[in-house]
């Protein structure tokens, strides 16, 4: 069980729902099909959008570091941080 329940898009204010739907579209899914890590941020879609944008320009940035290496770093930090998710 999560700390806060995960809201459905229909529960959100129209402006918030629009932000949520835009991010979901960029992720290639519908809001209800987003990964839990994104749905967990959907009470405040502007925060979700800020994190999505930050991710695009860091973890997902196609720079000099290969994707596999970044995934390995992510796994290592999560292991060290006892992050079960």
């Amino acid at each position: 069980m999560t700390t806060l329940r995960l809201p459905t898009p229909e529960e959100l204010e129209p402006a918030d729902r629009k932000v949520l739907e835009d991010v979901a579209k960029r992720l290639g899914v519908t809001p209800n099909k987003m990964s839990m890590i994104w749905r967990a941020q959907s009470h405040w879609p502007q925060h979700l959008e800020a994190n999505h944008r930050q991710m695009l320009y860091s973890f997902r940035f196609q720079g000099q570091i290969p994707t596999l290496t970044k995934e390995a770093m992510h796994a290592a930090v999560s292991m060290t941080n006892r992050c079960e998710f």
Partner: protein
Amino acid sequence: MLRLGVGERGVSEILAVAEHTAGLCALAESLRLPVDLPDPIEPSGPYAVRPVAPAQLEGEAATAMAEIKDWARDGLGVDHVPLLWRSLAHLPRLMASTWRKERLVMSAGRLDEAAKACVAFAVASFKQSPYMTAYTTARLRRSQGLDDKAMVELAGSVMHYVSFNTISHGMLLEPAATEMRASDFVDS
């Protein structure tokens, strides 16, 4: 990681780099090691652990210390043996066995050396260890030739991991799957 095809051995390599680096972070902080990269510096203060001179070592420990000195020249770009290893040498067998583990864990396997060096940097940064962050940065700069932009790309990625770990902790998110096997991810 399994989906990306590194297999259970590859995930085990990531875990090995993570635990090894986390352990070295704890060691460096336990001994309060000052950062001696790139310039050598000796510990000071009444309670500092004084490093062992390489000439005092014999046998396997002397061999390991000579290997570290050779490696540090290319791997870290320095002509001295880092304090981490000279301090550990008070227990010569511990120093030698830790060096053997370092070579095993950080050498290319399912993941190449560059990827493992990035993983070690990520863990040292996350653990906020000044010594090991400097050590792993020197390794990336020297042996992998990373420039400023690449270093920021790495640091920015670590920032993202910590942010999302915090969200998953705060929301008590449960993993989507448990007891995963590589075979679960083979394309059918």
